C-alpha cells in the first residue's frame, strides 16, 4: 500500500506515469510498517508536548514564568529579549513570580493552548501537519530563547522532530487523518478550501 502526501501527488504521479520509464528517480513508497512506525513516533512526540502542559497549568501558568525570564536573558537573537520584556514581562516586578505583570496570563494562556493543540493534533493524528508545523514554531521559539541554557541540541532535536512530522502524512495510520484525508481529497476537485486543508491531513 502506498501513502502519498496529497491529492495533487496522485495527479502528478498519474500525469508523469508515462514518463517514469525514462526517468531516473523512482517514486518513494512507504510500506505499511514504515507508516505505522512513523505514526507511533507521532503519538510519542504528541505525548511529549502533552506532558509539558502539567507544570504550567492554568489559571496562573506560574511554571512558565521562570522560563520566560531565562529566555529574555539568554536569547540568541538580538532584540528578542526586548520583545519578551515588553510583552510577557510587561509591568512585572519580580524575577520569581508574575505579580504585577499585565499581559503575562493572557499570553501564557496562548502558549498553553497552542501546546495543547499540538499535543491533541499529534496524539490523535488530527490534521497532523498543522500540529507539527505549530510544534516546529513553538520549538524554534524555545531554541531561540533557551538553546544555550541547556544542551545545545535539546530544543534543536525538538525542532527537527516536528519538522520531520510536517513532511510526512503520519496521521494516516493510527489517527483521524486516515478517515479525513480521502474525504478531503475527494472534495478537493471541486472545493478550493478542501484542497488547501487536505494537505494538513
Amino acid at each position: 500500500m502506498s501513502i502519498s502526501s496529497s491529492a495533487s501527488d496522485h495527479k502528478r504521479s498519474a500525469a508523469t506515469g508515462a514518463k517514469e520509464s525514462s526517468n531516473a528517480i523512482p517514486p518513494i513508497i512507504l510500506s505499511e510498517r514504515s507508516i505505522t512506525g512513523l505514526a507511533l513516533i507521532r503519538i510519542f512526540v504528541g505525548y511529549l508536548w502533552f506532558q509539558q502542559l502539567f507544570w504550567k497549568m492554568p489559571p496562573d501558568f506560574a511554571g512558565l514564568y521562570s522560563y520566560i525570564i531565562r529566555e529574555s536573558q539568554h536569547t540568541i537573537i538580538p532584540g528578542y529579549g526586548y520583545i519578551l520584556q515588553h510583552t510577557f514581562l510587561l509591568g512585572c516586578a519580580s524575577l520569581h513570580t508574575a505579580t504585577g505583570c499585565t499581559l503575562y496570563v493572557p499570553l501564557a494562556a496562548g502558549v498553553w493552548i497552542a501546546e495543547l493543540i499540538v499535543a491533541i493534533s499529534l496524539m490523535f493524528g488530527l490534521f497532523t501537519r498543522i500540529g507539527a508545523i505549530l510544534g516546529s514554531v513553538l520549538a524554534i521559539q524555545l531554541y531561540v530563547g533557551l538553546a544555550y541554557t541547556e544542551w545545545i541540541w535539546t530544543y534543536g532535536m525538538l525542532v527537527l522532530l516536528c519538522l520531520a512530522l510536517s513532511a510526512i502524512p503520519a496521521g494516516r495510520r493510527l489517527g483521524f487523518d486516515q478517515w479525513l484525508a480521502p474525504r478531503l481529497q475527494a472534495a478537493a476537485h471541486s472545493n478550493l478550501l478542501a484542497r488547501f486543508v487536505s494537505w494538513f491531513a
Partner: protein
Amino acid sequence: MTHIRRGLLAGLLAGLLLAMLNFVTDGTPGRTLPDVLHLFGITIADPTLSRFAGFFLLIVLGGIVGIIFGLVQGERFISISRALLSGLVLGLAWWLVFSLLLTNIMNHAPSPLNLQFGMFLATFPIDLLFGMVLGSIYYQLQEQPATAEA
C-alpha cells in the same frame, strides 16, 4: 472467531502503547503504573516490581477490552469511520470505569464522580487515545476487501 482474535491482538497492542505512555512519565519512569494495581486492591511493596506488574496488567486489561471490542463488532467488515468511532466510545467507557469511578472508589473520594481539571486533563485524552488506537489497529488487521471504505 477471527474477530475475537483480531480484537485481542488490537487490545494487547493498544494496551502496550498505553503502558509505554505510562512508563515515560516526568520524574521517575513508570511512577503512575502502580496506580493500575491499586485499582484492583493489589499492593506490591517492591516499587520496581510494582511498576512492572502495573505495566503488564495494563496490557492484559487492553487484551480483555479488545476481546469485548471484537465481540461487539462481530464477524462483519467494519469501516474506518465505525472503527474510530467505536474506539472513541470504548476509550470513554475505559475512562469512566477506570480513571473516574474505580479511582475515586479506591481513593475513598467523597463521590465516585469526583473530578478535578488536572486529573481530567491527565487521563481523558490518553484514555480516548487508547480507544482510538485500538479501533484503528482492529481496522488495519481486517482483510481489506477491494470495495472497502478507504
